[in-house]
């Protein structure tokens, strides 16, 4: 059990943003956090890596309470890919090397340089290594953010909508990469998402949030049309195509009228 969330709440007690959140995450598995806009998916991720302080409950990483660790110790255990990053004029290599910061004491060691080099090769970023990040596309930026989190060498990866601004090819590439890393390295991934089809295809477990608390959780194959309808308020059908489950929204009343 790499991650255990126990009765977590966030916000003021009168009207908490998140309440009664409990779940666990195992190594080698991707958990997708799903739910409508504004339900608190990002807030939950930030509570897990202590960017936000929960008002109640515990977050245990590998058995240790995250609240008892200092920022550098947390950064050695949890890699975080934020939803947005601001590209500055540094090379991709240096942007990824930043992920080694929790491990760097005085100066960058040969080991740090080797790890970054290895991650760059693994993600197929060789041709970008010495290019400036502020000249890159959204997909390339996202791969660099992912690489930065990977070189932190943590057992847990938190990803906040890693594909929200990407085209189809880049979405697929990034998610396939994440899945490969999680399986190969036996780490755990927790990912917030909007795209249910990608969630079904790349996730192992799901967590539906509704009104600030957990509405349902389990294996992604168990997601039912009724569950989706009650969380998102829109009717759907779930089909299977070439072995992949596909979610198709039913007609919206406006369409029918026209």
């Amino acid at each position, binding site marked *: 059990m790499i991650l255990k969330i126990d009765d977590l709440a966030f916000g003021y007690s009168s009207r908490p943003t998140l309440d009664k959140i409990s779940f666990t995450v195992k190594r080698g598995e991707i958990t997708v956090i799903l739910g409508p806009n504004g339900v608190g998916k990002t807030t939950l991720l930030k509570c897990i*890596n202590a960017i936000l302080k929960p008002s109640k409950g515990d977050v245990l990483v590998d058995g240790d309470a995250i609240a008892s660790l200092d920022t550098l110790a947390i*950064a050695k255990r949890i890699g975080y890919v934020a939803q*947005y990053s601001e590209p*500055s004029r*540094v090379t991709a290599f240096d942007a990824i090397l930043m992920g080694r910061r929790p491990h760097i004491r005085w100066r960058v060691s*040969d080991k740090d340089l080797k790890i970054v080099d290895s991650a760059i090769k693994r993600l197929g970023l060789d041709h970008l290594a*010495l290019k400036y990040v502020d000249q890159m596309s959204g997909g390339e930026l996202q791969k660099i953010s992912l690489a930065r*989190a990977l070189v932190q060498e943590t057992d847990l990866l938190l990803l906040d909508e890693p594909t929200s601004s990407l085209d189809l090819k880049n979405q697929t590439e990034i998610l396939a990469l994440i899945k490969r890393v999680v399986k190969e390295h036996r780490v755990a991934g927790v990912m917030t998402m909007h795209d249910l089809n990608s969630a079904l295809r790349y996730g192992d477990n799901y967590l539906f949030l509704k009104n600030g608390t957990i509405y349902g959780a389990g294996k992604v194959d168990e997601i039912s049309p009724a569950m989706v309808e009650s969380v998102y308020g829109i009717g759907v059908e779930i089909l299977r195509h070439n072995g992949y489950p596909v979610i198709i929204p039913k007609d919206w009343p406006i369409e029918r009228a026209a």
Partner: protein
Amino acid sequence: MHFNDGEISTAYTAYIVRKTGFTLAMSGGLAMMLILAISLGAVHIPFTDVVKTLAGASVTRQFDIIVWNIRLPQTLTAIVAGAGLAVAGAVMQSVLKNPLGSPLTLGISHAAAFGAALSVMVMGSGSMASSLSDAVTITNPYITTSAAFLFSMLAAGIITLVARIRNASPEVMVLTGVALGSLFTAATMLLQFFADDVQLSAMVFWTFGDVARTSWKELSFLAIVTLVSLVYFMANAWNYNATDTGDETARGIGVRVERVRLMGMMMASLVSSVIISFVGIIGFVGLVAPHMVRRLIGDDHRFLLPATAATGGLLLLASDTVARLVLSPHILPVSVLTSFLGAPMFIYLIIKGYRR
């Protein structure tokens, strides 16, 4: 996780060497400019004699006095002040996530000017002397300097305090700085309105930046403060790189963003306050030098900070040398020159492509 099949990239090593080379080249240029600046003036001293005198081999007694007592303190002050203001500007730009970050744009200079004006008015630290070159002198430079320092630190303190209340957000710091700038400008105007002729000219005289005001004692103090801040900023280079990438990402790699921002702002304010209090207001070096270097070698603070220090020193030294020579025997205030050179250069940089 195991990333154990990597090698040390030779391309990356070569790239690091290139970036370091830029700072070395700038420092070399600075050393040459220093010799040139010492050699030029009312009395011309040949290069070889400058080098000999600096090395301790006395050429003539006159050269000894000119080099050691007049030109070296002035040129070194220009270098130290230029380097300090430029590095403070670079850090403010990063910490505030704003390309306009500099001691001048954040009201710190205006606060210093108000402090100096107040000391002239209330404590009578300025008066008219009858020497030809310097018609107005500040009779008690220590009081003026202390008052200027006090008020610029007050401005910096208010900026950091407001920022603390509002979670150290960059916007809050910038807006507070701009508000303080206009407040202190207005307050200075008020003092000037009620000042008599002598006081008024002393106040205005103080605001003309001038690197010839310092003796060895003050210069060493300036140098120590600048050096300490540079070391502090260099130690935080990774933190500034990280916050540039976004606050969330920075927190994700263990950077305490608010702390880095507040401490960076405080150190940058401190070093600029000290410099401004001793040499007066020198605009544009803190703004232009970092931007020039950013365009040439990028935003990586490991290289940006030392290169900016060298470039800022070079810019102010060159400006001061030109200011001494261009209307000789009259000496122009160096701040006039930095702004005359700085503003067009800045507009050029903006047109060429805006960068933080």
